[in-house]
């Protein structure tokens, strides 16, 4: 945002929306005279990711992080808005062939390494699948060599290819998932809570590995986590989500040294303090509201210490990376 990018961003997300129909079945609606109900999981989210950087989405449960991730990789069609990756639209039917070629460059790593690997396949076959599907290398011997190479790259042994997923621990499975993501020579990897199922010492191994691979191959990450400390460790830029919208988008360093939106401040304040500076915390008020009937105006206003009349009626636009009337009017100093 500070300097105009010389080249167009690698990933461009514009005004992305996803509305889920959570109505009761037709008969119930007729009998109970109930209206249709919609859940706005993602409500107008825009961001850019530059090549080689890590953009993180952070927020509490139900804020829409994972829905954004699934729309970006194309697992879920957006209700509205566009995703453009490397200049190719992910929604435009006219460029279907180009998109097919692009798919190979996008991969995803999921939260639960127990669910994301086929338990009946040997590890070698799991990792070779993208290689075969996209014809990356030809010939069985070459594929086998490539699988061995990938396993070594993520810190496993080439001979591990003959084992089944159940023979590995959670951290090792996540390594296998990373090897599979790299198998198609992916450039853009969407990681949805990749370490939240892991113990801290294993989490450290995986985070370090992901950073090393990023340096080595110039990977671009969209990184999703609820853990602010993990995000701080990984991200170049961060988008803080609340009820399907961005409340603040900022450079990582800036966000942690100078959080501007009241929600970001509250979130940072709530993280248990390992440094034990004995900081007094402002009492955190309330909980995330029901996303089916979110509050009018700024969705954060019932919990906000800076709330005033305008917040209750008018949703704040994102101005200079912050969506808050109070900050835009220079009232945050009062807090």
């Amino acid at each position, binding site marked *: 945002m500070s300097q105009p990018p010389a080249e167009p961003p690698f990933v461009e997300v514009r005004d992305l929306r996803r509305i889920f129909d959570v109505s009761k079945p037709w008969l119930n609606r007729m009998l109970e005279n109930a209206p249709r109900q919609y859940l706005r999981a993602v409500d107008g989210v825009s961001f850019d990711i530059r090549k080689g950087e890590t953009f993180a989405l952070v927020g*509490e*449960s139900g804020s829409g992080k994972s829905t954004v991730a699934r729309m970006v990789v194309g697992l879920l069609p957006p209700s509205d808005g566009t995703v453009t990756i490397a200049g190719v639209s992910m929604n435009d039917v006219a460029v279907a062939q180009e998109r097919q070629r692009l798919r190979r460059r996008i991969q995803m790593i999921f939260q639960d390494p127990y669910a994301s690997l086929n338990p009946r396949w040997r590890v070698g076959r799991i990792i070779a699948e993208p290689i075969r599907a996209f014809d990356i290398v030809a010939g069985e011997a070459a594929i086998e060599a490539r699988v061995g190479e990938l396993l070594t790259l993520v810190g496993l042994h080439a001979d591990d290819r003959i084992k089944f997923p159940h023979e590995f*621990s959670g*951290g*090792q499975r996540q390594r296998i998932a990373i090897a599979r993501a790299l198998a198609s020579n992916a450039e853009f990897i969407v990681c949805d809570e990749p370490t939240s199922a892991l*113990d*801290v*010492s*294993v*989490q*450290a*191994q995986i*985070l*370090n590995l992901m*950073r090393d691979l990023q340096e080595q191959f110039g990977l671009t990450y969209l990184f999703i986590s*609820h*853990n*602010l*400390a*993990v995000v*701080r*460790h990984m991200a170049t830029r961060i988008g803080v989500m609340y009820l399907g919208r961005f409340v603040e988008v900022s450079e*990582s360093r800036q966000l*942690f040294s100078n959080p501007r939106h009241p929600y970001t401040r*509250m*979130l*940072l*304040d*709530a*993280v*248990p*303090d*390992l*440094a*034990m*500076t004995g900081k007094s*915390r402002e*009492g*955190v008020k309330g*909980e*995330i509201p029901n996303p089916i009937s979110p509050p009018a105006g700024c969705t954060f206003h019932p919990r906000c210490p800076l709330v005033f009349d305008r917040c209750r009626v008018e949703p704040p636009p994102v101005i200079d990376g912050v969506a808050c009337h109070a900050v835009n009017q220079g009232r945050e100093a009062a807090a």
Partner: protein
Amino acid sequence: MQSEAAIPVLSVRDLTVEFVTRRGTLRALDRVSFDVARGEVLGVVGESGAGKSVTGSAIIGLIDPPGRIAGGEVVLSGERIDNLPDEAMRKVRGRRIGMIFQDPLTSLNPLYRISEQLIETIRVHTDLSAAQARARAIALLDEVGIPAPERRIDSYPHEFSGGMRQRVVIALALCAEPDFIIADEPTTALDVSVQAQIIALIKRLCKERGTSVMLVTHDMGVIAETADRVAVMYAGRVAEIGPVRDVVKAPLHPYAKGLMGAIPSLEGEAKRLVQIPGTMPRLSAIPPGCAFNPRCAQVFARCHVEQPELIAVGDRRVACHLYDMPQSLHDASHGKPEIAA
């Protein structure tokens, strides 16, 4: 060894829990010892499989076969409770030891209003009449921070949010005014902003009521915020136990050092995380000697053959041979490259 003259609320000595399987006997807890003083919060931290939850279950006598307490004793306010018959143990649970579990939905019966659950629990443990019990239930809900308790008491568990449900579970644990509460991962299922509220609540209750708490969690941040002392567990053994400030800021045991360094922090530079190679051993394959020896950077010959005992180092106790040497050797070992904290 303990300086305070008063009897600890809970004293665990050499507690050993074994699970008998077809492939042999697995030792889930290996001579675990610690005390919890009145009004104190003892944090128990460790990674999956370290034996944190088994410790809690063993204390309240909820180890199911094929598991069994194979040795050691648990003493609650001067009275041994690990060998009580089932009927007597049931009176101890709930009345003298309260319990808070990770998932508030499993601790509450979804088919009953919380008023019924609270009143039933209160009447089982006290002589109050139904009306008195209801008044007490409302007072408890008020104490744990549920707004408009007179109205909310007749709601069902599903009508509460996750954080509010956990508050109800805490109220339930307080019903019989126990001296000691075991909280097993009480904030793990909650979002960070709600987690902060629940931590503050537990701290406040300890202070006001003088209740002791054993807080079991994998989250070092929660321990640092809440606990007075902390026990770091590894492969069913206590690796280090001491005042929380000492253990978090300057851990002694190589595993504790690695663990602290592995936690991404909100302070300082975002540098590369400390990495402990490998993973915790399975219970069926705990190496001889010190259980941490295959992953330890400071391993030496003795670690492979002899299991380290907990030895006093200042205010804390550490199970590591590095600290069990003549003073000169001890200093020399400190000269070795250490894992940066």
